[in-house]
């Protein structure tokens, strides 16, 4: 008995021990399960993976036939279903019921339903009402909440080996769920950290990009500054130069300096003057001198006929893209880059630059700068052209002025000449006019001339003519004969002592004469005297009469008679008219 008792006690003890052992085993199993679950879950980063692993572990640990985990976002009432051993219909229904489930268990407003954070609680299980929203197999329902976005339900079906879940199972389940929450939380944290990390990485990249951008901008700015400086320098250098050649020289030198180029040339073509000019640097002079101006002109024009140079607007520049054109042997050298510039229809040109000293190719920016510089250069060229045109015009103007002055001088001289000629002409004209008028006019001068010439010729002829006559009346040079008046003469007549001599020409005598008078015309004195008077006594008294206004015949005859020795010759005073007046006899 005692033994029996003892054995009973031992048995009891053994039972107790066994229980304790069992308990211990169970606890150990639980702890191990918890540990393993925790260890397994802690290695996972993905929530879905965690949930899946958890569900699998939990079902395995507890020996559930099926189970599900709903991951719910209580704010959006959306969620995810992870299940094992559930029919598709159940899963579908769960998905459909998600909002209602979220509403029922996780509505923020429902305080009583709200589970404390990071704590799992049993909301359905043995003795708890079955939730119709969950699949009918669900025996246990555990609610857990990490935060509003992360909460969920764990549902488990029947156990394989038992009808219901023991309390220990539930406890273990809650523990496991806590593990799940911790794992999810941890995974979430990791996820957040990862996200943050990714964001950081992205930010870093952006930052780097921004940095690079900044560097680029800085480089660009530097380039711009360099460009502007080059432009400024070019402008500064070119300002004040008015000669096209000098501008081109300075510009070429400066451009070569800017781009660190050793060789370069500028061809300038002036179509108006038909002159091609070469400005060069770093090229042998002999080579330039060999270039023919006509060829150069042809080449430049060829450039402008190509696609690069066609339809260029005035004051524009273009890069020569066709490199083969730049290798034309007529050109001074093989240029690496070339710029065509077109100032106006008459002036155009080509700039060629050799390779850089650094042997780098020309970048696009440099090409751009070159174009800008050439643009600037063209402005100066245009100005210089205008200036040269103005100068040329000025010179022309000066020449014209001189010519004009000369012309004016000539005109003045000519005018003077013309005036003199005009005066001469008018003088000649007036003379001619006068002469012509004089021929028409009867002038006193003509009379005087005619009379004078007549007088002179008459006198000269008379003097030189042996038969000339005496112009001075002879009576003036001799003493006048004695006169006898008519009365006394009548007495003598009556007495018959005196001979009455009629000195007038015979016609007058014949017409009328004193009775008994004898005609002795003065003109025929000698002849008649001989005939009639020769025998007359010299003492015979003779009374001579016969005179008129034009002739004193009586005096002449009396003188001649006296010269013949007749001493008593008298002239009848008053002549025949005095005789006649007294009524003395006439016949």
């Amino acid at each position, binding site marked *: 008995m005692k033994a029996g008792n003892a054995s009973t006690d031992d048995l009891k003890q053994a039972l107790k021990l066994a229980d304790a052992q069992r308990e211990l085993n169970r606890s150990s199993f639980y702890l191990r399960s918890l540990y393993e679950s925790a260890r397994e879950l802690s290695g996972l980063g993905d929530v879905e993976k965690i949930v899946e692993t958890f569900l699998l572990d939990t079902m395995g640990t507890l020996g559930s036939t099926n189970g599900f985990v709903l991951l719910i976002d209580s704010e959006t009432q959306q969620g995810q279903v992870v299940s094992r051993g559930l029919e598709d219909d159940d899963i579908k229904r769960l998905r459909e019921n998600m909002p209602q489930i979220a509403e029922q268990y996780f509505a923020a407003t429902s305080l009583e339903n709200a589970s404390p954070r990071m704590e799992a609680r049993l909301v359905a299980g043995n003795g708890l009402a079955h939730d119709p929203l969950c699949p009918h197999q669900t025996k246990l329902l555990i609610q857990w909440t990490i935060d509003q976005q992360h909460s969920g339900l764990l549902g488990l079906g029947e156990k394989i080996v038992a009808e219901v879940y023991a309390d220990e199972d539930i406890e273990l389940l809650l523990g496991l769920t806590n593990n799940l929450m911790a794992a999810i939380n941890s995974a979430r944290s990791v996820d957040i950290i990862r996200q943050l990390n990714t964001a950081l990485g992205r930010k870093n990249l952006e930052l780097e990009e921004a940095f690079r951008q900044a560097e680029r901008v800085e480089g660009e700015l530097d380039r711009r500054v360099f460009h502007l400086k080059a432009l400024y320098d070019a402008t500064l250098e070119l300002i004040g130069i008015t000669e096209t050649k000098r501008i081109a020289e300075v510009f070429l030198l400066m451009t070569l300096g800017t781009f660190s180029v050793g060789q370069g040339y500028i061809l300038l073509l002036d179509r108006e003057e038909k002159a091609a000019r070469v400005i060069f640097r770093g090229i042998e002079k002999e080579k330039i001198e060999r270039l023919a101006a006509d060829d150069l002109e042809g080449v430049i024009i060829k450039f402008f006929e190509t696609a690069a140079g066609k339809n260029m607007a005035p004051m524009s520049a273009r890069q020569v893209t066709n490199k083969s054109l730049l290798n034309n042997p007529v050109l001074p050298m093989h240029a690496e880059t070339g710029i065509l510039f077109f100032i106006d229809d008459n002036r155009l040109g080509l700039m060629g630059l050799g390779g850089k000293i650094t042997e780098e190719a020309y970048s696009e920016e440099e090409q751009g700068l070159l174009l800008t510089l050439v643009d600037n250069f063209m402005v100066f060229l245009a100005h210089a052209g205008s200036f040269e045109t103005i100068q040329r015009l000025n010179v022309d103007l000066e020449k014209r002025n001189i010519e004009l002055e000369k012309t004016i001088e000539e005109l003045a001289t000519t005018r003077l000449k013309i005036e003199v000629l005009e005066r001469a002409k008018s003088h000649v004209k007036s003379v001619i006019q006068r002469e012509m008028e004089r021929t028409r006019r009867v002038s006193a001068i003509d009379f005087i001339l005619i*009379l004078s010439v007549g007088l002179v010729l008459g006198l000269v002829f008379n003097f030189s003519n042996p038969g000339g006559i005496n112009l001075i009346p002879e009576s003036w040079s001799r003493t006048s004969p004695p006169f006898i008046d008519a009365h006394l003469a009548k007495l003598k007549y009556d007495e018959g002592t005196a001979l009455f001599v009629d000195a007038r020409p015979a016609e007058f005598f014949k017409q009328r004469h004193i009775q008994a008078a004898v005609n002795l015309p003065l003109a025929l004195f000698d002849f008649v005297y001989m005939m009639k008077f020769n025998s007359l006594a010299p003492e015979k008294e003779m009374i001579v009469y016969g005179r008129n206004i034009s002739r004193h015949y009586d005096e002449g005859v009396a003188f001649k008679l006296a010269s013949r020795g007749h001493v008593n010759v008298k002239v009848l005073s008053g002549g025949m008219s005095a005789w006649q007046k007294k009524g003395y006899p006439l016949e």
Partner: protein
Amino acid sequence: MKALSLLKKILTHRYVALVLRLYVGALFIYASMYKINYTGEFAETIASYQIVPYWTVNILGVVLPWVELICGILLVAGIRARSATVVIGFLMILFGLAIMINLMKDSPISCGCFHTVGEKISWWTLLRDLIWVIMTIHILFYDKAFHLEKRFSLTLKEV
């Protein structure tokens, strides 16, 4: 009317005047020739007219033929023709007046127009003289053609 104007045209034609001019000019040249050669006789003729004072007779006898000759030459040549015409006309009128006076005085003198001896003055002589005066007037007004002087002037004008 037409005939009258034609007649007038003919009568006043410059060639008529030219002919008259040549005629009168030649007449005077001819008349002067004898007078120049026989100055004394011409002086007597002047004296026979009893118009000019005795102391001018000889001078006139010497000068007048030369004046006639010059005027005649000028008239024929067409040099200072108008002046010459006037002088000739004036002489003609003088001669006419002298003839008329002597006709009225019934002086038994010869005309002495061309020769000292010869025709006696008569009314016919006066008429002839008058005709010559008319000719002179015609010349004075219508003479335009063939003047040596004009030729000379025209040439000058052309120059």
